[in-house]
């Protein structure tokens, strides 16, 4: 039982890592597009964000997985894991984008003006002056989101992906045992403990200025 569940934990970690890897940078791209000078682009991004936030992630995962079959009649063999990651990344990117946007908009205009007078280009201003300060400001909100993600990985059970939560349910049913749930619970708790600790370290590292 433990061996099977350990494999499930590994898959859970896989979803978690790939989602962060994809959604953290994608969120920044979306946040910047959200402030594009083209109305059409802004409109599309707004629509995307409101759909991602306005519908259940569980439903989104089902759409990504079964959509190709129902819409185009395509075979969905081997599509389970890609659909899962696409669903998670696009959903979390929308949340991260809004966190980034809040951080960027909270920057005092004086920082931009000081940089402009000193001759920094727009890219230099963003990369050297704005972004480092934004990252510090948004750390608490990002921590919240990352902790939610650890728990949200369990939604992969809707696509019958064999991560730790799906396995716990299966094993519990077949062996009529409560133990798998306890193991899964301890696993999630420890995972989040590690995440919280790591984020706290990063925040401390950024504590050298105010």
């Amino acid at each position: 039982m433990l061996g099977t569940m350990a494999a499930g934990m590994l898959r859970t970690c896989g979803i978690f890592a790939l989602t962060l890897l994809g959604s953290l940078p994608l969120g920044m791209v979306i946040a910047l597009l959200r402030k594009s000078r083209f109305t059409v682009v802004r409109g599309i991004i707004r629509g995307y964000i409101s759909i991602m936030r306005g519908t259940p992630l569980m439903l989104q995962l089902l759409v990504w997985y079964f959509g190709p079959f129902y819409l185009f009649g395509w075979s969905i063999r081997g599509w389970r894991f890609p659909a899962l990651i696409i669903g998670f990344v696009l959903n979390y990117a929308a949340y991260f984008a809004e966190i980034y946007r809040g951080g960027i908009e909270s920057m005092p205009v004086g920082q931009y003006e000081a940089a402009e007078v000193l001759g920094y280009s727009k890219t230099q201003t963003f990369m050297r002056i704005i972004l480092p300060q934004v990252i510090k400001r948004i750390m608490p909100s990002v921590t919240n989101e990352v902790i939610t993600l650890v728990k949200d990985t369990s939604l992969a059970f809707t696509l019958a992906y064999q991560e730790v939560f799906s396995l716990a349910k299966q094993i519990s049913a077949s062996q009529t045992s409560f133990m798998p749930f306890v193991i899964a619970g301890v696993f999630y708790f420890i995972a989040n403990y590690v995440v919280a600790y790591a984020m706290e370290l990063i925040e401390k590292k950024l504590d050298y200025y105010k």
Partner: protein
Amino acid sequence: MIIEMKNIRKQFGDLEVLKDISFGVDSGEVVSIIGPSGSGKSTLLRCATFLETIDGGEILYMGQHAAHTDASGKAVYVHHRELQKFRSYCGLVFQQFNLFPHYSVLKNLIDAPVEVQHRSKEEAEETAMELLRKMGIADKADAYPYQLSGGQQQRVAIARALAMKPEILFFDEPTSALDPELTGEVLKVIRQLAEEKMTMVVVTHEMPFAKAVSNRVIFMAGGVIVEQGTPEAVFDNPKEERTKQFLRVFER
């Protein structure tokens, strides 16, 4: 002349902030701009340093046009690549300092020289340390802005502007955000720069300072230059009623 601004017009919506203002500053000159709030002093500085775009008129640095007015009466700026050159001619010290909080004092002073002007790090550091010594805060090179008093922060901001080696330095009410006991140390530094013949334009409410340090005083009100002249002429023998009225407030 270092800078020449001719017939500058600037509107915010329906509000005319600058109405046909012309002024120039010669090398080594120290000009103070005084006037009631909302008179357009800060906007004038922001136009001179390219933070705001003018609606009409001409801006010249070192005799070269950065902006001119075309046949239709609209202001046209040079291409933004070329504008960078004009930006390097001028520095601006803000009321709120606007230091970069995530950079140490030294990094605040060397980042733009290295990244924007592509000067060597060694040379930039040398220049920066010399400036910090001059400002009396060489021991703060490794400190972060939040660890400094307002007066020290403003002196860092002045040093940061000077580190770019500008031809002219603009000050936008440099002591207005400071506690009264801290204004002295900042004014002292500006006075010292004046003695070294640094070309400067200072928007200020510190009348005794303006009188002591400037070669020329400009009184602005309602978006126009009402009166200008030597400090003695403007402060002791103002000709315009509007000027007299304004100065009376400060005598009390």
